């Protein structure tokens, strides 16, 4: 890969990050995660985000299952799962997902079933968008790291 390619990748990554910040999808907590990544923990961000995906999808399934019950909704359980999803989203800087959880929680507190259904759909949609964009980000990052390795063999860990 040429050094021009490397520069372009970095630009791509920055551009994507800027976009996500501008859209309010991510907030500065995500930057904090990046700051915590270093040579002793070189994959920290992707590790945390992977755990986040795993946990979030579990919570989203729980939420959907709770809402599938035509008769009685377990509002307490709904609240618990929402709080957990809200907390973890906030911890990785997933601002939009977190805010939708908050709106969803309000709908639960008001026993507003249709608002809850809508909130769940928006939540699933937003989560998918976030996941896709973060995957993109990691792909660009990986290409950049690989490119560095090709250009500077033996100096893999310098980023």
């Amino acid at each position, binding site marked *: 890969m040429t050094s021009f390619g490397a520069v372009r990748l970095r630009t791509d990554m920055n551009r994507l990050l800027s976009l996500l910040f501008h859209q309010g999808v991510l907030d500065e907590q995500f930057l904090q995660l990046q700051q*915590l990544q270093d040579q002793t*923990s070189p994959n*920290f961000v992707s590790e945390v985000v992977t*755990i986040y995906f795993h946990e979030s999808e579990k919570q989203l399934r729980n939420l959907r299952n709770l809402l599938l019950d035509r008769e009685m909704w377990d509002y307490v359980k709904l609240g618990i799962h929402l709080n957990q999803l809200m*907390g973890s989203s906030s911890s990785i800087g997933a601002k939009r997902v977190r805010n939708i959880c908050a709106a969803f929680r309000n709908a639960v507190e008001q026993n507003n079933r249709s608002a809850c259904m809508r909130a769940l759909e928006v939540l699933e949609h937003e989560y998918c968008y976030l996941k896709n964009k973060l995957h993109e980000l990691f792909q660009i990052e990986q290409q950049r790291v690989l490119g560095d390795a090709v250009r500077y063999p033996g100096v893999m860990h310098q980023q």
Partner: protein
Amino acid sequence: MGVATDSQFHVLAVDDSIIDRKLIERLLKTSSFQVTTVDSGSKALEFLGLHEDDEINSNQPSVSPNITQEVEVNLIITDYCMPGMTGYDLLKKVKKSSFLKNIPVVIMSSENVPSRISRCLEEGAEEFFLKPVRLSDVSKLKPHMMRSKIKETHHHQQLQENNQEHHKQDQEPIEHNLLESPEVESQQSNGSKRKSMEEETLTRQNKTQIQWWPYCRFD
């Protein structure tokens, strides 16, 4: 006898969220602390050597022997909202325990509830961090741990002086063994070790209370 060595401070982090555990662990390690993470208040108490169902009474040793004798915890940082035992419950139990109460406790919460914050501070928490916790928050922890360590060192020095006086007066073999035990002489100032013993006058009447002490023999 030595001054507390420049070994790393050890923080016990308690949070039911796996993401937050990973985060706080990284934050603490980045700040050069040793970290142990647990996912509940009851596991935290277990780690500290305190059984949850024991009533905290400074005359009653409530620690099972052989557990965590060598583990020193310099600070506990715990989430507030946890199923079962909340961080607030954990804080109260720690502060009521005669041998844990000097360990500084910090509470974390994602909710900014002023009454919650003041309740925790009143109960003895050193700090209250809003989540997500940042590096700037973690940088506030060291002074609490240093202060605690200094307090413990002075306390231990005083106990040593008291024990030495006792030793001259009293011929009790029990006491003799106790004095030679590394627990008393060690400078490892430590909130999780059993200080209740050191604070008591040793007499034959106390024998039944200290049967669990591994260094004593009563035959």
